[in-house]
């Protein structure tokens, strides 16, 4: 399944230019700074004193979020695993949709919910829940990121061959088999999920800063704000980069296999496992948290917004931000598809070269968002590029650099679902490569393309870390506006905007799931 060769080569070139250019620009800038006699800056690479404390604190926070995410992911995924027929098959994947809801939306909802609970506690003479600092940061990051471990654990469970489980069931209890057979077989992907959560938590500063917790990922941003020196910002981010690349490299084997392995269905009539009471209780707690993760934001924000008029008022007041967000998200989603497809076609093989391609495609995911923004400024902030630098191109480039690798992974999953024989059959009849591509490849790939587009759209509309740095003067995305509002507490306006973000994210997610599940049947005219 290939794009025509020349187009693919061009798209790949653009992919690597877009994705790696911010990092390369920072490296080149650093070399220049070192030659200019700033070798003393190299000390920034080693966190000492306050920065060391921040580094350890960030590791602890990310580790806590990752471990609790894995536990919750296992409990949730085992529960959802049995829902394989009818509406349950849709519902279980819908849990994963909230991954596209930006973390600060969870933050606002939970801050409001905890504030309400604290009022009740005060009235009854009980002490408040201290929802600032560690607790708030950990909880919100867990709530925002838990769909990742749930999704990857679910994929891992689906990949365990059913006869391996049934063979174990013949002699031992289900709980014994869970710990001795099922979880060990699913372990690589569960750990990869944990690794991914660690990475995202470790590189995020927006949520900890909302809860007044200083973390290391803010250092590069702070360093850049204080010195306007990209090299200093880059050097201070090196420890962060090393850890994230290490975690990503360790996880990428499992991620690669997850994208390559077809899922295996347990026979729908197989007797459900019987768990002991302690496990059912634990699972109930986990499911309770997942339900809260879904309904607390919706419930609290709806209550805060109050009336439909308030919702309309919020939308009207943020009209220009909404239009700007939709505009850059649509452009990003459309542009990332051909490049993502070109990258995915390099990942689809199963040889040793593929491992290198995987590393190249996934490493950009480890680059903290502020660094991408700073890298882009380093490239584009030049007199002869002034028109582009102050334009809407910058947030688009930032989102492309961040999310094209993810689009490539989604497209790879679709490529792997396609029977190669379908393509071979097409080759028998069509001699022109472009005709085969348009009439056979594209319609078969359509669900993956649509899903990747929707996901890129949702993620781009919630992007903050890089956009905050590169947004043109006088322009702001909806996310930037909400984030600025959040520092002043919840209001009807900000709640209305957050609800809008949830709706955008959920609609994108539902469409993505629907096109993947319905496949080419959604495109009858094309086939």
């Amino acid at each position, binding site marked *: 399944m290939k794009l025509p060769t020349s187009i693919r080569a061009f798209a790949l070139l653009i992919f690597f230019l877009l994705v790696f250019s911010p990092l390369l620009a920072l490296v080149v800038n650093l070399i220049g700074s070192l030659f200019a006699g700033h070798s003393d800056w190299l000390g920034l690479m080693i966190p000492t004193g306050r920065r060391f404390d921040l580094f350890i604190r960030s590791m602890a926070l990310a580790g806590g979020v990752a471990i609790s995410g894995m536990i919750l992911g296992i409990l949730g995924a085992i529960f959802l695993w049995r829902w394989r027929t009818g509406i349950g098959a849709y519902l279980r994947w819908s849990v994963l949709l909230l991954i596209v809801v930006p973390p600060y939306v969870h933050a606002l909802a939970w801050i409001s919910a905890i504030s309400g609970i604290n009022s009740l506690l005060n009235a009854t003479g009980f002490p408040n829940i201290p929802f600032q600092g560690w607790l708030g940061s950990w909880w919100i990051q867990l709530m925002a990121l838990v769909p990742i471990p749930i999704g990857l654990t679910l994929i891992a469970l689906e990949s365990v061959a059913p*006869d*391996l489980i*049934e063979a*174990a069931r*013949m002699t031992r209890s289900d709980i014994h088999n869970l710990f001795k057979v099922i979880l060990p077989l699913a372990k690589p992907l569960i750990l990869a999920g944990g690794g991914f959560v660690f990475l995202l938590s470790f590189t995020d500063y927006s949520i900890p800063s909302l809860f007044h917790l200083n973390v290391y990922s803010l250092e590069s941003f702070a360093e850049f704000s204080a010195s306007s020196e990209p090299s200093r910002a880059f050097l201070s981010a090196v420890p962060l980069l090393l850890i994230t690349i290490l975690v990503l490299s360790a996880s990428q084997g499992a991620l690669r296999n997850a994208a390559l392995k077809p899922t295996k269905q347990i*026979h729908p*009539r197989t007797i459900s496992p019987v768990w002991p009471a302690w496990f059912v209780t634990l699972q109930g707690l986990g499911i309770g948290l997942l339900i809260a993760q879904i309904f607390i934001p919706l419930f609290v924000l709806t209550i805060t917004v109050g009336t439909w008029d308030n919702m309309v008022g919020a939308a009207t007041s943020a009209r220009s931000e909404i239009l700007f967000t939709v505009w850059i998200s649509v452009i990003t989603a459309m542009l990332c598809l051909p490049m993502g497809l070109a990258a995915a076609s390099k990942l689809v093989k199963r040889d040793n070269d593929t491992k290198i391609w995987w590393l190249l495609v996934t490493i950009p995911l480890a680059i903290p968002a502020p660094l991408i923004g700073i890298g882009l400024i380093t490239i584009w902030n030049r007199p002869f590029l002034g028109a582009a630098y102050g334009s809407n191109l910058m947030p688009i480039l930032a989102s492309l650099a961040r999310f094209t690798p993810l689009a490539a992974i989604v497209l790879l999953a679709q490529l792997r679902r396609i029977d190669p024989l379908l393509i071979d059959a097409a080759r028998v009849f069509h001699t022109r490569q472009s005709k085969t591509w348009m009439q056979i490849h594209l319609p078969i790939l359509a669900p993956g393309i649509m899903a990747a587009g929707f996901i890129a759209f949702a993620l781009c509309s919630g992007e903050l870390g890089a956009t905050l740095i590169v947004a043109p003067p006088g322009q702001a995305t909806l996310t930037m506006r909400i984030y600025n509002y959040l520092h002043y507490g919840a209001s009807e306006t900000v709640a209305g905007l957050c609800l809008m973000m949830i709706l955008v994210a959920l609609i994108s997610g539902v469409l993505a799931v629907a096109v993947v599940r319905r496949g080419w049947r959604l495109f009858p005219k094309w086939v």
Partner: protein
Amino acid sequence: MITIHRLTKFYGKVKALDGVSLELNNPDPLVILGPSGSGKTTLLRLIAGLESPDEGEIYINGVLASKPGWVLLPHQRHIGFVFQSSALWPHMTVAQNILFGLNGLTKNEARVRLQGLLDMTHLKGLEQRYPDELSGGEARRVAIARCLAPKPKYLLMDEPLINLDPDLKEKVLSLIEETTRQTQAFLVYVTHDAEEATKLSGRILNLRSGRLVI
């Protein structure tokens, strides 16, 4: 003794088994012969307790084991099952695979049991290998040894020779006969291959479209 009474199973609107009644009490193996889709595997899965019937009951040694909506769990039935694939756990060695089903034995007892099974199935020297280091025939022998380890009273085998070379089929079939004779377990053997069915000295029942044909 396993008693199967008017067992019926639907998959959607398809009747996979249609009122099958059987008594498994003869010491000779029982071979169930039938083409693909005749309900052979479904019958074995119901006996094993992996699925519940839509109609009918299964009794094991006079105790109700399955009825619509309720089953005695598979591991409580003392039944061994060899699947079409070897279904060996890839993260465990041969020894760990074989010993998995043993419960309540001391280390020494488990070691003695393992040695006995390795001898019986001609697997000596392979106990520390992982499944991906075994040939197809070796993997089937491990699956049989694993199935015999907890000393089940009944052995269910679902096309255990599928995908094996003809030479290997002969060897594994002899091993199955030899081990079931030694362990005195009651064997229910399912196959679509009439030649394979006649090679096993036992009672042969034909299953066609979910019904037993005499």
